[in-house]
């Protein structure tokens, strides 16, 4: 009996171990090794930290690194601010069919690929696009307005792409909040703000944290949106990794960047959990 249970356990575990090992652990170990070597001449390598020194001293690299981090945090914050009322409405105010329809509406954009979705934004925002024409027609602008290739356009794209991943965990946690608990909050003298702060947000915390972690990682690792909607100086860190690996064939520097990104996201996620006093187990459930 115990032997059977053991074999079952091993069989269940095997795909997970393979998946983790082949796709995550091994490539990362290899990447770490690549990032720590220096090419002396053709086919001759030496262990060194030159690439890290270069990455941490070169102003362009550093600037892009921090910009990407800050913009991702900002995109996460904006997504949270927009998604929270939406999720609250879906979970607590909408009833029956309306609730389902609204939830579907959040899901529909994900039926088309990210490329097409981003292209949709380009059609709307470009110089000869819909919004520009509309502004001219309404007399609010006297010449075509270019709204693409700015940080704002990129932010819109990032928030739009991440929305669902924030709404779903929030709706799930908010739905589990008993209506009478909120009513009790008002009954005992609370106003909208204090009920939100003391009752609704603490209850939704697991959803907020897991939503933020997912959205932050998605934004940080996003390649398409910053490339297509961002301007010439809104270079995203992933674009630099792509450039090093593909355009420059400088795998060593690319791997270094990749590793920096990994460390950055780990540190920020850890900080987020510390700040809200949660553990990863609690959050991921």
């Amino acid at each position, binding site marked *: 009996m115990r032997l059977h249970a053991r074999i079952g356990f091993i069989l269940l575990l095997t795909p997970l171990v393979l998946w983790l090992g082949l796709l995550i652990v091994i490539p990362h170990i290899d990447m770490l090794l690549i990032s720590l070597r220096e090419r002396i001449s053709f086919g001759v390598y030496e262990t060194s930290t030159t690439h890290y020194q270069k990455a941490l001293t070169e102003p362009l690299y550093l600037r892009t690194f921090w910009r990407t981090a800050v913009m991702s945090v900002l995109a996460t914050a904006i997504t949270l601010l927009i998604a929270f009322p939406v999720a609250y409405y879906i979970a607590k105010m909408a009833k029956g069919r309306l609730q389902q329809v609204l939830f579907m509406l959040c899901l529909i954009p994900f039926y088309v690929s990210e490329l097409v979705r981003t292209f949709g934004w380009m059609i709307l925002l470009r110089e000869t696009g819909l919004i520009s024409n509309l502004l001219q027609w309404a007399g609010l602008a006297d010449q075509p307005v270019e709204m693409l290739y700015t940080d704002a356009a990129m932010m819109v794209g990032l928030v739009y792409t991440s929305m669902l991943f924030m709404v779903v965990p929030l709706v799930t946690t908010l739905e589990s909040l008993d209506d009478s*608990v909120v009513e*009790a909050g*008002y*009954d*005992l*003298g609370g*106003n909208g703000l204090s009920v939100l702060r*003391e009752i609704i947000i603490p209850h939704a915390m697991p959803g907020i944290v897991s939503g933020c972690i997912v959205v932050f990682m998605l934004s940080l690792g996003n390649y398409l949106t910053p490339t297509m909607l961002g301007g010439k100086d809104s270079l995203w860190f992933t674009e630099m990794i792509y450039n090093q690996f593909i355009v420059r064939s400088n795998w060593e520097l690319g791997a270094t960047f990749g590793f920096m990104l990994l460390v950055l996201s780990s540190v920020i996620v850890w900080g987020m959990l510390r700040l809200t006093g949660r553990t990863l187990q609690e959050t991921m459930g």
Partner: protein
Amino acid sequence: MTPDLECADLVKRFGDTTAVDNVSFSVPPGSFFSILGPSGCGKTTIMRMIAGFLDPTSGDIRIKGGSVLDTPPNKRPVNMVFQHLALFPMMTIADNIGYGLRRQKMPKDQIARKVDEALDRIGLPGIGGRKVDELSGGQKQRVAIARCMVLEPDVLLLDEPLGALDLKLREHMKVELKALQAAFDTTFVYITHDQSEALVMSDQIAVMNAGRFEQVGTGQDLYYRPDTPFVAGFIGEANRWKGRIERAEGSALEMRTETGLAMRATATGTLSPGDTAEIFVRPESIRLAATAEALSAFDNQLQGTVTSILFNGAASRVLVQDSVGETLEVTLPQSGEFANLKRGDTLHIGWGAAQATCFAVAA
């Protein structure tokens, strides 16, 4: 003295269902008022209107003489203990109890003192640091009441607060709630569908049916002098007979049942010969005897056979089938006299006309 709570012609409609239909009542200060009724009769709806979570379709709600219709729930001097308590699971017990005081911007040290006092009052000193899910059902109950009572509301509303507890604890909490009400000296409005809760605790009980109040009175009033057939049937249990009135002299009357038995009863309201009526007799007001002579003092007497014995401790019953085939429920005295009673035995039963209440039945 102005009543603490007064509802005047309260009506609430949801679409075309009328959940609360013209309800008026007033609750004097310091009393325990219960609303008793079957599920879905509109009890919670009344409660939510008083607390401010629902607007009445028409009518007025006055607290200490002033209308509160335009006061939002967080400003009303009433607090509510919810059906499932609705303690805040994200806070400690002390924070739960202190929540309302923090909203009133009371200084921290004063809040801490008041919370400790309240915990002493409910007999749970020193549990302030615990989480909500570290308490038992009965303890949560008391915390939910303390959370409201620290705010010293004019009226405390309780919506079936014992519904989630098991039987033994419910019996215990009935006594405890009454003691807490005396200790805090506040007006309680209590809703329940359990008649024994209402009878044990209340000064006044309103029996509600399909959105209306059938009768308001003390437990004794409702039990001994029900105004309507609904109350007679809902409070306690009763054997019923329908029939036609044959003679009436004042409130004393004689009715012939549909099965042909002649019965004497006391009328509620005016009844005259020829009217259709219904008689209610409680199982506990029927006397059992082995011989007919022992029952000669009673106005109504029957002979029957025992069809079954429903043993339930002090509330044990015998089912007796009379000569025309009807089955009556009779309380079985635990004096030892009928200890050997068994199925098929012949018995004599009797009851007085004063214990048989008769109501007119709408034809």
